[in-house]
């Protein structure tokens, strides 16, 4: 399982941040060609990100590039460069319909074929940033086998709703739709950024909410947010011990040819084992297949 607890934004026209991006331990690095880049610098940012990705080793982080939307005309130019730089994932902004995903996928596939890159090797994720996108989340999540996740982009979304970012009430429906759509499709759900980087209490409050809701992780705009985010997603020792005991009990039951086990008088069934396995993966503990 690939952990996607943290997806750190890296502005695509900032060489210093691009150089240092790997050192903060984010699970995913998202190089941005879209909103963080001035319209007059789109070409320069594309060159910078392309050259960085073909030169710098960012492992073990997953490499994501946020392109401009295809309707702007810039998105196609971004894809021509970035697909050839072999990132793990292309992030499509402002996804409103399943067609937005399939249109982008068609271009990625064309470029893969032209460039001799194995077809299907470039992953995708879709950022949902409008009421239309939220209501279409299930269709978007199922639109392509390349999708590794869907994400909420809250700033554009609350503007579309004619509201503002507040205590999370304004995002409750969108978060619920997105996490359910993602889990239905078997992919990850990524929450939006928390922009007040000096408010760690507020950030942690939001991280706890999205963790409870089932999100895989969250976008971050400052490296300082990574450690508290990972800490919150890290299971407690008590939960780890319990999960290990569950895995041991099911292992013993399987050895005896039984599909059902019990632990301290409680039945261990398939969902309990799946939860224990996920928790151990979050804790970085290897589990037998």
């Amino acid at each position, binding site marked *: 399982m690939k952990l996607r607890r943290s997806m750190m934004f890296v502005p695509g026209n900032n*060489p210093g941040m*691009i150089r240092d991006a790997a050192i903060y331990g984010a699970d995913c690095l998202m190089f941005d060609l879209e909103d963080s880049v001035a319209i007059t610098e789109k070409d320069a940012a594309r*060159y910078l990100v*392309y050259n960085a990705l073909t030169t710098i080793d960012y492992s073990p982080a997953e490499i994501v590039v946020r392109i401009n939307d295809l309707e702007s005309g810039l998105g196609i130019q971004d894809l021509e460069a970035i697909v050839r730089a072999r990132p793990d994932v292309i992030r499509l902004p402002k996804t409103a319909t399943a067609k937005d995903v399939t249109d982008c996928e068609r271009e990625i596939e064309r470029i893969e074929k032209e*460039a001799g890159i194995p077809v299907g090797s470039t992953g995708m994720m879709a950022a949902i940033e409008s009421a239309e996108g939220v209501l279409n989340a299930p269709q978007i999540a199922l639109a392509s086998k390349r999708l590794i996740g869907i994400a909420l982009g809250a700033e554009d979304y609350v503007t579309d709703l004619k509201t503002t970012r507040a205590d999370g009430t304004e995002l409750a429906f969108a978060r619920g739709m997105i996490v359910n759509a993602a889990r239905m499709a078997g992919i990850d759900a990524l929450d939006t950024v928390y922009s007040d980087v000096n408010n760690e209490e507020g950030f942690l409050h939001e991280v706890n909410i999205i963790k409870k809701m089932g999100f895989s992780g969250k976008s971050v705009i400052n490296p300082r947010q990574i450690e508290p985010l990972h800490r919150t997603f890290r299971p407690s020792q008590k939960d780890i011990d319990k999960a290990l005991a569950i895995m041991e009990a099911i292992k013993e039951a399987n050895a005896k040819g039984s599909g059902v086990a019990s632990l301290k008088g409680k039945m261990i069934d398939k969902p309990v084992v799946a939860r224990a396995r996920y928790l151990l993966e979050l804790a970085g503990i290897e589990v037998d297949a």
Partner: protein
Amino acid sequence: MKIVKPASAGTLESSDIEIRIEPADESGIEVHLTSSVMQQFGKKIEAVIRGTLEELGVESAYVDAVDKGALDCTVRARTAAAAHRAAEDSNYEWRVKA
């Protein structure tokens, strides 16, 4: 690629390099470089600028570069961006990562 007008790319921020390219009266590439790491890396940076322009087929240009500790990949990116702007050429040749 023919340089037809003055153009620049990059900034004077730390880790960046500002590249300004202008048409030259004579053939050949003239590079004027100032760098915060001139003693250690000046020759290397100039070689990267020249190599990038040669790859793009630029035969004549005057280049003014102010380096603030940029990595080679940043020097390549800023040089290529400035050259395309100065040539009013948006036909890029992206190579597949090895």
